[in-house]
């Protein structure tokens, strides 16, 4: 069963690649505009050994990781605080509801003016965008804690802090990780957007813009392939972490918006 699924998936990918190749070779697609699939794949393979491109990839990964880490460090305590203080939550919810829909990418031109350094600008915008999924899921996780478990602890004479540490946080942890996973893909989108819009010393977005100005469509597509692969790997790692750490947790869906 599993084998046939893998075989079907591979066949699907192969058919698409072959169709693109044939369309290019027979002149159905203008190779000036849409390069051959084989050219793109060869380009992607070449990029893996291209030190300039690798430098760009590491620049993107660096701002992405930094932004995601900062966002997590900010949003998890904030979410725990708001989630355990219902009054504070009701008071701040409208403010959150007004801030959340602001498209983070719209901040790029503004932050680019205010922030002196290019890296600061990117990290700031990423933090803004990545905060919300973590915050919302953390708050959701705190609400989802089984009241019976909390009462049980209280009955045995544990204080609020002990209940927080032993019951509330462990049972909210899967939601937090789901929030981080969602934030990771948002952060990657924003990182690359910032590179496209504001340039900077390096990054996948910067590389693609450079390739575009030289009309190297094959290299643009090759870099896009790598961007997709990085996204896939990050997501797969985080999904695996969720499954490994929280095997006991059934509802892994989380809140997406």
């Amino acid at each position: 069963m599993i084998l046939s699924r893998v075989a079907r998936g591979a066949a699907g990918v192969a058919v698409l690649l072959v169709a693109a190749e044939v369309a290019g070779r027979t002149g159905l697609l203008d190779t000036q505009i849409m390069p051959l699939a084989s050219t793109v794949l060869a380009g992607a393979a070449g990029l893996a050994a291209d030190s300039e491109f690798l430098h760009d990839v590491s620049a993107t990964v660096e701002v992405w990781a930094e932004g995601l880490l900062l966002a997590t460090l900010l949003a998890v305590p904030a979410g725990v605080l708001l989630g355990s203080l219902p009054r504070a939550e009701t008071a701040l919810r409208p403010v959150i509801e007004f801030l959340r829909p602001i498209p983070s990418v719209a901040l790029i031109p503004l932050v680019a003016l205010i922030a002196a350094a290019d890296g600061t600008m990117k990290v700031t915008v990423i933090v803004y965008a990545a905060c919300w999924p973590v915050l919302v899921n953390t708050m959701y996780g705190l609400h989802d804690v089984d009241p019976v478990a909390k009462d049980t602890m209280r009955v045995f004479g544990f204080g609020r802090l002990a209940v927080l540490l032993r019951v509330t946080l462990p049972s909210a942890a899967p939601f937090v990780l789901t929030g981080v996973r969602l934030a990771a893909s948002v952060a990657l989108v924003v990182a690359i957007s910032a590179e496209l819009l504001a340039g900077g010393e390096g990054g996948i977005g910067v590389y693609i813009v450079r390739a575009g100005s030289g009309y190297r469509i094959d290299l643009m597509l090759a870099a896009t392939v790598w961007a997709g692969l990085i996204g896939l790997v990050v997501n797969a790692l985080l999904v695996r972490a969720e499954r490994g750490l929280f095997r006991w947790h059934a509802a892994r869906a989380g809140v997406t918006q």
Partner: protein
Amino acid sequence: MTVANGGRLRGLALRLWTVPVVVAVWEAAARAAESVYFPPPSAILARLRELWFSGPPARLFLSDAALADFLPSLGRMFGGWALACLGGIALGVAIGRSKTLAGYVDPLIEFGRAIPPPTLIPLFVVLFKADARMQVATIVYGVVWPVLVNSVDGARYVDRLHIETARVFGLSRAERLTRVILPAAAPKIFAGLRLSLSLALILMVVAELAGSATSGIGYELLYTQQNFDLPGMWGTIALLGVLGFLLNSSFLVVERRTLSWHRRAGRTK
């Protein structure tokens, strides 16, 4: 009636009291700081009004500039969103109902949705020469995934008994699709549509910022940046926030109406 309304007003006031407080603190802090980069909200509002809301009352106070900016932006956004929705639902339901088809395209979908959509903007710029088509293409590519993935999910997990009931009572294929599969998948599909609507706004902005648009809200944002018009920038960003908020809330209203059976059926069980 009046009692209920009064109660509702008081409830609203209790929930929203922090908003004026936050704005007041912001105003005071910005005035004290006197930084060019952080104008007070009053200045932002004044600039916002000057830019877009100085028109005649008959036009909801929208100025010519507002019409010239909002209409093309929103047109491209809704156009791209609608295209992606139609395509995503049709394809998603087909994939969700056919295990064979799903087997062939699953890896392609996983890969396609992993590509950050803005990555493709430079490519679309080369392909479509930075006109509206490039912006619509960016939006369609970016927002189709949540619709597609949620439609696949919704159509795949239709209760087997629902399908068997439809078969036993001799519903045709078309009837099974429109009366059983689509309604059963609707809650999931709607979740995807809502997610993609807020994504569409983001991609509209990115596409306008990156594609050197000649009109639109994103263009206005760039224009204010180049003229170092900070109140204008803050105002545009706030406007986008309000727009996002309105889009999401109005979609929620439609969703609640359409799916009232789902919400209430879930509650009674």
